[in-house]
């Protein structure tokens, strides 16, 4: 492994590899989960959340997952954008 190719690898990351960007499926899956859980949480009654100590976990956790999923999608699109230029 010479120094030059090592540097190149670090700069371009996966783009010289042969496969799809893993950030996309993770991002889509987590965003979809977040949306589904969030909406479900908003339409369900309070009594359902007695077991989770009164927290509407579907809304709270759904929101968090949506944020993480969106983060992955953003990272993937930013990289694609940079590679495209």
């Amino acid at each position, binding site marked *: *492994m*010479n*120094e030059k*190719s*090592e*540097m190149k*690898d*670090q700069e371009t*990351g*996966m783009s*010289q*590899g*042969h*496969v*799809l960007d*893993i950030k996309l*499926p*993770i991002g*889509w*899956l*987590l965003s*979809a*989960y977040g949306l*589904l*859980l969030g909406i*479900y*949480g908003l339409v*369900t009654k309070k009594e*359902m*959340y007695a*077991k*989770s*100590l009164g*927290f509407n*976990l*579907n809304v709270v*956790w*759904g929101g*968090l*997952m949506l944020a*993480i999923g969106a983060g992955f999608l953003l990272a993937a699109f930013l990289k694609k954008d940079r590679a495209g230029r």
Partner: protein
Amino acid sequence: MDPVITLNAVDYAIIGGYILVMIFVGYSLKKYMKTGEDFFLSGRSLPGWITGLAFLSANLGALEVIGMVANSAKYGIATIHFYWVGAIPAMVFLGIFMMPFYYGSRVRTVPEYLKLRYNEATRGLNAISFAIMTVLMSGISLYAMALLFKLMLGWSLTGSILFGAVVVLLYVFWGGLSSSIYNEVIQFFLIWLGLLPIVFLGLKEVGGFAGFVAKLKEPLLHSAKYLGTSANPLGVDWFGVVFGLGFVLSFGYWTTDFLVVQRALASKNINSARMTPIIAAFPKMLVPIIVVIPGLVALLVLPEFSQAALPTADYNSALILLMKHYLPNGLLGLAITALLASFMSGMAGNVTAFNTIWTYDIYGSYIKKGKSDSHYLRMGKYATVFGVAISVGTAYIVQSFPNIMDYMQLVFSFFNAPLFATFLLGMFWAGATGWGGFFGLLVGILTAAGHYILYKLGVLHYASDMAANFYQAWWAWLADFVVTIGVSLFTAKRKPEELAGLVFGLTPKTKAAVRWLARPAVWGILAIVIAIVLNIIFW
């Protein structure tokens, strides 16, 4: 028996979404699988963070999670030994010292290294024993999942076993190791997102760590203080933990098990390969958060684990009962998907390791040598099919073992524990000869088997099955170590030139080409320091 958990349409939508994404990922990787190296080693093209997360997740199968929650309910904080003693040092050692020989020699598999360093016989012995082990382990994953579905959803064992097998078969058949690795990365995120709510709610209900301290028996709260005393719930002494688990079992597993090493070999360059286990070490240190805390919470909040019920409690059900206790529908589906994902990837990891070893080290070395690359690629796909088929059969064998985790340690100690002695001597002592390596390994495996038989016959006594496993690993390792050295002294040595690139000291040192922040040694030392601090805190 009524199912423990009732799922609704939202839960099923979440489970279904995961299966779809998995199959989609497998299918979209299909067109990239042009050569054997693409299928078996992801074309050696992946960045360190992906192989690192996959390296960790390959070991975070459903049975690991369920078994470790069970261990935590049974043994308390002492379960952290499986992480901070039994994993981190070995992972760092692999990255810093051993990976240069694995990745640097361009071998495709662990047995192939043994062939270059020792001889054909050593490779054959390891390849065959490893192939057997992977299908056993794959069967264990399948069974663990089927049992889970049966308890939880009331599905039939056979139905779940076949369903799981078909999904894994589909995506590994299409995408090979890449499919496996990508799903492991997805699983890494799902397992944390699925289990953390239980941790938060559990800690809130029992009143945080102060609640544990106030309500649990003292020996359950210390990892090391009670080792070797009769109050120690683990039933293992210092020697067993440090040498049996921390040294032999752990190094044997993390440094020579092709299942995990394969992930590092898929890296795009040697620095990423060395960073793979070290990147994995950091999240590995945090895994006790999602297994130990739920185990302790189960003891305090679940009636099934109250003082009166304990003698007959089924520890393996702790995690599932906690999900039922805390999670509303919706999040419940997510937690179950996380377990499903960790089961699938545990099985897929074994299947991909099996098809690679079978194709390169058994089929390509003994059955049909010198065929074209596309011939072996096709064979790899067939091997995926029959590997899955054998796993299905194995799943039924596992049913007779009550504690899955103990069984897993047992299987490791048969095959991996002696192997670590062979590697240690092979990589760091140029004097080890081909036949030394072969007979050392053979005697090591026989020692493990003999020890197991004597223990089962009642000739040898230990305080617990776990202690027996740890000691078995130690004796198997020692036997391999001593016999390898002994035989090597009387057999012909190889010329030093032939061992260049394979043995420490005979390999020219390459200057580090990366800036200090990207160096494996820097991060490895940091991981070790954190692990030591954590051990002291929970002493």
